[in-house]
């Protein structure tokens, strides 16, 4: 994998949102910093709290797995971190940028640096595998078309699909599609990867392969990962396991390691 496109790691973290104060002096600024995050759905009578004072910190390059029963608010948490939803209460700081009260446009800008992998692969049906991945690398500024295409091909080779460049999603298996999705997410050189049950549609063997691949590539790019999963067989890839219940986080017993 020596030929992998390099992650332009000239990060501008902690660029003065007054958030540096919350991290201990000398420590690396966290990739994700959630403080007392609360979220509600619905209006009036129907208003229901799904996140209750969530605190979570993810460091650069760290792989965090989030588990918990269905409906406890995992996806909601992911969409808030990914800047897909407006923050209602509490503080969300991603790559040093405070998301509370941020405009649509700022969140969209931030999303360029966040890779997202969905439960369904969500590939563009009318694009080939290569073109789908290039939709990711097209977000990179300053690269020529050819350079972006070559990167897309490299990524597909990295996920083991070098022979399927020109295939439409329709002609790929579930696991292959999910690997294309991973390549697409990584092609934009994200510093943070959010994955929501990426193995849900896969059998256990290809699920395992996809997760291993995800972890290895993220490592090589020193990209932090926040992954939601129900799958007990893949918990061991985590640097840290976080469990959620009824909108609250509790640090899981086996892999305890937080400040």
């Amino acid at each position, binding site marked *: 994998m020596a030929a992998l496109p390099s992650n332009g790691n000239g990060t501008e973290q902690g660029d003065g949102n007054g958030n540096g104060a919350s991290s201990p002096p000398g420590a690396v600024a966290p990739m994700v910093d959630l403080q007392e995050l609360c979220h509600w759905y619905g209006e009036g009578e129907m208003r229901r709290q799904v996140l209750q004072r969530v605190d979570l910190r993810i460091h650069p390059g760290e792989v965090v797995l989030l588990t918990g029963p269905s409906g406890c608010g995992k996806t909601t948490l992911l969409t808030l971190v990914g800047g897909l939803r407006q923050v209602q209460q509490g503080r969300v700081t991603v790559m040093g940028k405070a998301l509370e009260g941020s405009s649509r446009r700022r969140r*969209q*800008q931030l*999303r*360029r640096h966040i890779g997202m992998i969905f439960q369904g692969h969500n590939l563009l049906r*009318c694009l080939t595998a290569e073109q789908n991945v290039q939709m990711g690398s*097209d977000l990179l500024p300053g690269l020529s078309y050819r350079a972006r295409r070559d990167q897309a091909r490299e990524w597909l080779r990295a996920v083991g699909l070098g022979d399927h460049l020109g295939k439409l999603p329709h002609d790929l298996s579930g696991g292959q599609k999910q690997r294309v999705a991973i390549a697409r997410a990584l092609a934009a050189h994200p510093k943070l990867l959010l994955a929501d049950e990426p193995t849900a549609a896969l059998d256990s063997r290809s699920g395992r392969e996809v997760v291993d691949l995800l972890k290895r590539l993220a490592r090589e790019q020193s990209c932090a990962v926040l992954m939601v999963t129900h799958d007990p067989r893949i918990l061991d890839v985590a640097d840290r396991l976080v469990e959620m219940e009824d909108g609250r986080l509790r640090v899981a017993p086996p892999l305890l390691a937080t400040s």
Partner: protein
Amino acid sequence: MSELPAVGLLWRSRKIPLAWLLLTRQPVRLAVALAGISFAGILMFMQLGFRDGLFDASVTIHKLFDADLVLISPRTISSISMSGFPRRRLVQALGDPEVKGITPVNWNFLLWRNPQNKSTRSILAIGFEPNDPLFLDPSLKAKAQLLTQRDRVLFDELSRDEFGPVATWFREGRTVESEVGGKRVRVAGLVGLGPSFGADGNLITSRETFLRLLPDTPAGSIELGLIRLSPGADPAVVQQRLRNQLPKDVTVFTKKEFEESEKDYWRSSTAIGFIFTLGAGMGFVVGCVIVYQILYSDVSDHLPEYATLMAMGYPLTALLGVVGREGLLLAMLGYLPAYGVGQGLYALVRSATKLPVEMNSTRALVVFSMILVMCMGSAAMAMRRLADADPAEIF
């Protein structure tokens, strides 16, 4: 690439042509869309073509005259009732240094008796001095000498069949005689002019014969004066000069204005313009509905994919651009077949109806603009659906 840095840069920074791929990877939908757009375009081409062709047909004869300027009576409003004015005015015009030649013309309708079944029908008679130039087409010159004999006429072989099998009989070598205005005339030759709005048929004769057939015509009165200018003269300048010199009992038109005034008469006095413009409008509306349906369902079908792109960090404007480019591509791809088929149908109409329907750049541009507005308008409407693409809903 060094000599065209801007183009080179654009080429380098190009992206996946999403709009093109969205359209072409769904060939059936694309075909339906293009068929709809082309149909609308063809409909517009035909309706506008018929409209302009019909108006052109009102000046079939007008166009033939060898003239730069014409004199008519100010009381003349159309070719179906030309008023007379003193022939002296035309002779006066000859005093202008840039006027090279004049032709006095008499113009009126007569009753022609069908030599076969004896029914009568109104025919346009044009009288001139057989030695004067009349039409641009030089083939008339030789035939004009046949008119120096009294009571001879040249019959328009393109006249409608109701005037009798004159041309056929004449070509068979028979002597064709008929009664016009109660006097016997003989067909001395055939010319090809063509029917117009006002006249189903035409005949040309000498002024002498003309005055015999229409004895009520005041002596020294003509309905039309043709003026030819010396080469290089500016018709507008001479027109202005003549206007200042001549009394107000004549109107000086350029040949173009003469044709336009006739067309204007038919435009304002008939519903032709309205009917065919309405037809073209129908084509436009049908096209709008089809393109809107196609683009709207296209956006709806791909909503999760658009939302995915937004989640990846593509701005909404980029997605609006995709839909806009789809509209633009549809307009261009749909126009080409419409243009081609339009050309073919024009040729068909020309040969079947003798109507002067032709493709011209103005109409080609008008129809393209209509198709463009149709597609871009529909794209703009379909874009509103993009507001429903919520990236938060795709996890």
